[in-house]
């Protein structure tokens, strides 16, 4: 439909305007919109309308916080009111007991709720997502009941007589004043949220939400990112809570019930999970709709419930859904010559490799040079119930070689990859990379050590464009801090630009620059596999593991793949390859290992493997591989 619109002059004009607007900084747009809203409400609205508007702003602030947890990181939270409560009580108690100024209590409200976020987040990180529902709900109820039973905080009566905010002698005490303070806090929250969304953190969150397992395997520290989300979400809630306390003047535990948590969740889901304008719209609907329905008194909530269910059915994606796609990703980036790209990749890669080797040597480890052992697999055993998927396998991979692992289906090849990359912990045995053990490390740490991988069943992030998939692969190499991302500092901007440029180079390396802006799922099977390769390379690994990269490719595509693999080796990266296509494996490999029923039955140069009786025996009578036909042809 958008495409049709773009054909017409109106559509074109709209697109141009949007494009222009899109290039003005986000903060300026937020400020313009919020100032306009503020001016409109204050000049035309009476006290009642302004009061409702202040409530909308409060809910929007809460929605923005919860949106980080639910919309960005994809974690469920049914106890968000707890943060609101902690923020409100912190600020209220500091103001009434210690007689602090409202504005000086804000950092403490934020600090306390951030800590509460960490306390909630830490134990729940490893829980499956459905369980989060009840745990967060429980956290919310526990917080409320604790305040209810806590004498110092007034017990069931709460805190009374909370003063107005005072700013260098100016007291904020009308609804209009509060609306201004509310909009100010809202603007800060929105700008930070937008910056986060477009930083590496935002990308990491989208990746985790899409496929946590794949994200972790390409270097995203998923547990840390989830914890961040809880902490940051909590901080936003604290800000909203402090604002709420001073505005209402008296708080008690009944303001922070499960129902409130649900309402905030409704704000973001109704608005469009993850979308900032959606949050504003959602807050407007959730606060204003019951006000509009006030006439109905008795059946007000019933009608609200019916409308809510109806809206969910009509627009499950929300009223203003989130759009993350940039169809022209490299717009405005300076062009690079084709030769130049290849040379730059090589240069950048060498810089990275050398830096790593230096760090490695400085830490007192021996750096293997070309031809020496890079990866040692020693007596690795992996067992599933009674099945030994990998049975006491040992071999060495040398730096700079292309090493292939073949074997019949179910031979244990993928399982071996999983043991090397930290996805699974082997039951026994050791894996040494660069002379250092990697068993027991989390997958993202192993990526940072220098091992990249692709997956047998393609696991690209479906909600991201191709270039963003590759940018996720660059995650381990970012050096910017979270606060830089929030403020969108020049340093962070430079880092982002570099990431973008590098993702473009890697895409051109695998020949996919032209489709960078498409969704990964729109590409052909073969192209998706190439995106996975680019994503694995983006972290500048020493060693890459490719699990059946040629599956589903036609002969031409396989030829291109061979060329890519050789190019990767030319960069100095060691390659381990699993594939069922014998002619391809024989052509590119320096050495080949054969796994059958988890046992390493042969290891050697391609020619040796072809004539190895045990290998032929293992493949004999199996139709799923073409070893038989290959040896027949050779004969």
């Amino acid at each position: 439909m958008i495409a049709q619109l773009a054909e017409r002059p109106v559509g074109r004009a709209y697109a141009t305007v949007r494009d222009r607007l899109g290039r003005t900084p986000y903060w300026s747009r937020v400020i313009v919109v919020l100032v306009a809203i503020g001016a409109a409400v204050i000049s035309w609205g009476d006290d009642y309308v302004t009061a409702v508007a202040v409530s909308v702003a409060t809910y929007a602030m809460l929605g923005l916080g919860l949106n980080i947890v639910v919309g960005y990181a994809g974690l469920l939270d049914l106890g968000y009111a707890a943060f609101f409560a902690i923020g409100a009580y912190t600020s209220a108690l500091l103001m009434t007991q210690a007689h602090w100024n409202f504005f000086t209590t804000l950092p403490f409200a934020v600090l306390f709720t951030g800590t509460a976020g960490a306390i909630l987040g830490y134990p729940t990180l490893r829980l499956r997502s459905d369980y989060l529902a009840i745990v967060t709900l429980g956290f919310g109820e526990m917080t409320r009941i604790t305040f209810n039973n806590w004498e110092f905080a007034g017990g069931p009566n709460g805190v009374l007589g909370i003063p107005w905010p005072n700013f260098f002698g100016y007291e904020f005490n009308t609804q209009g004043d509060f609306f201004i303070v509310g909009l100010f806090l809202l603007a800060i929250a929105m700008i930070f949220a937008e910056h986060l969304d477009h930083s590496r953190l935002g990308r990491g969150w989208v990746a985790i939400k899409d496929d946590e397992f794949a994200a972790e395997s390409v270097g995203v520290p998923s547990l840390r990112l989830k914890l961040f989300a809880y902490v940051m979400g909590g901080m936003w809630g604290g800000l909203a809570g402090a604002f709420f306390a001073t505005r209402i003047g008296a708080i008690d535990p009944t303001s922070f019930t499960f129902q409130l948590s649900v309402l905030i969740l409704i704000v973001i889901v109704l608005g469009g999970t993850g979308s900032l304008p959606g949050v504003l719209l959602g807050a407007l609907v959730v606060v204003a709709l019951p006000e509009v329905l006030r006439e109905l008194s008795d059946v007000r909530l019933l009608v609200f419930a019916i409308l809510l269910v109806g809206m969910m059915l009509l627009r499950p994606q929300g009223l203003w859904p989130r759009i993350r796609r940039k169809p022209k990703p490299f717009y405005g980036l300076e062009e690079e010559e084709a030769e130049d790209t290849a040379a730059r990749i090589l240069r950048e890669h060498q810089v990275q490799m050398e830096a790593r080797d230096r760090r490695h040597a400085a830490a007192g480890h021996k750096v293997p040079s070309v031809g020496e052992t890079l990866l040692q697999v020693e007596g690795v055993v992996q067992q599933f119930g009674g099945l030994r998927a990998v049975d006491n396998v040992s071999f060495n991979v040398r730096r700079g070689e292309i090493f292939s692992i073949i074997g019949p289906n179910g031979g244990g090849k993928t399982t071996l990859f999983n043991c090397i990359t930290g996805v699974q912990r082997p039951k026994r045995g050791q894996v040494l990379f660069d002379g250092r053990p990697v068993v027991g490390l989390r997958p993202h740490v192993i990526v940072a050590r220098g091992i990249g991988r692709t997956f047998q069943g393609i696991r690209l992030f479906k909600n991201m464009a191709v270039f963003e998939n590759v940018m996720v692969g660059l995650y381990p190499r970012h050096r910017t801090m979270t606060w830089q991302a929030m403020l969108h500092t020049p340093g962070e901007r430079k880092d982002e630009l570099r990431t973008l440029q590098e993702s473009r180079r890697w895409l051109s390396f695998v020949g996919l620059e032209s489709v960078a802006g498409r969704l990964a799922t729109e590409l052909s099977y073969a192209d998706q596999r190439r995106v996975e390769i680019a994503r694995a390379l983006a972290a500048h690994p020493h060693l890459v593991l490719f699990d059946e990269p040629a599956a589903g490719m036609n002969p031409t595509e396989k030829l291109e793949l061979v060329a890519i693999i050789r190019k990767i080796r030319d960069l100095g990266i060691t390659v381990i390859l699993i594939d069922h296509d014998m002619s391809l494996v024989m052509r590119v490999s320096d050495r080949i290992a054969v796994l059958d029923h988890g046992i390493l039955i042969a290891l050697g140069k391609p020619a040796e493997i072809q004539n190895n009786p045990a290998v032929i025996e293992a493949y004999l009578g199996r139709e799923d591989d073409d070893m038989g036909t290959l040896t027949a042809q050779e004969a």
Partner: protein
Amino acid sequence: MGVFLQYTVIGLTVGSFYALVALGYTIVYGIIRLINFAQGDLSMVGAFLGWTLLVSFGFEHLPIYLALVIAFVVPMIGTAVVNLGILQFAYKPLLRRSLLAILITALGMSLLLQNAAELIWGAAIEAYPPNLLPLSGFFVGPVHVTYVQIALVTASLLLMGGLVAFVQGTTMGTAMRALAVDHDAARLMGIDVDAVIRIAFVLGAMLAAASGVMLGIYYVQIHFTMGFLLGLRAFTAAVLGGIGNIPGAMVGGLLIGLLEAYTTGYLSGTWEDVVVFGVLITVLIVKPTGLFGERVAERM
């Protein structure tokens, strides 16, 4: 010791109600991965249907066994119909789409049921006939056990036994278990997934309604908001036992009942929720899948 045993008796009675509702959560969750937040409110609907029959229609004056059969069977059927309606209109269109949207819809249905009940039956507290079952009891040593408790716990156990027999013994039950393990494989085997989902909703609603009527008989007073706490406890129980796991839901329900009784008895009613959730969170930290839940290995 006597006091402890007394609390145990109370805890087991209440726990058996929780277990029934928890089973509803678990069956539905096992099949469509939906936390049906309206489950507790279905209990409330069942309780009010039973009350209407007994009090408004005067069935309490029938012979006791007949009255009880009517007061259980009709609400169970009625609630099942309500739940099927919810499934058809609210959940079905969203089943293969956004999980969050369907969760919000479930919360919306809970709100809707409560407010519809308020509209139909009013906001006042209603009372079950107080002497439907003999109020007396007997002493086992120092512990007082009432006939009502015996009857209600027996009834819950019978219902749970019936459910286990259904799930283990019938073709439909086998299909349910298959579906809970692997959706796609079950579909490929020719299982009529929609039919299984409907059965799960019917069973869940029937158990919830039965527990609602029991609560009415046990506590006498019912109110349109009673489903919230009941649902919360039952949901906690289901997760504690390992959601999706049938014996887990039963054990979880009983444990939550006991925990609640001991907390109220020894500490104070105001700390009930804190203790219950505290125990739940501790258990989940130690065993993230719940007491009986199995870890599903990630396959690629």
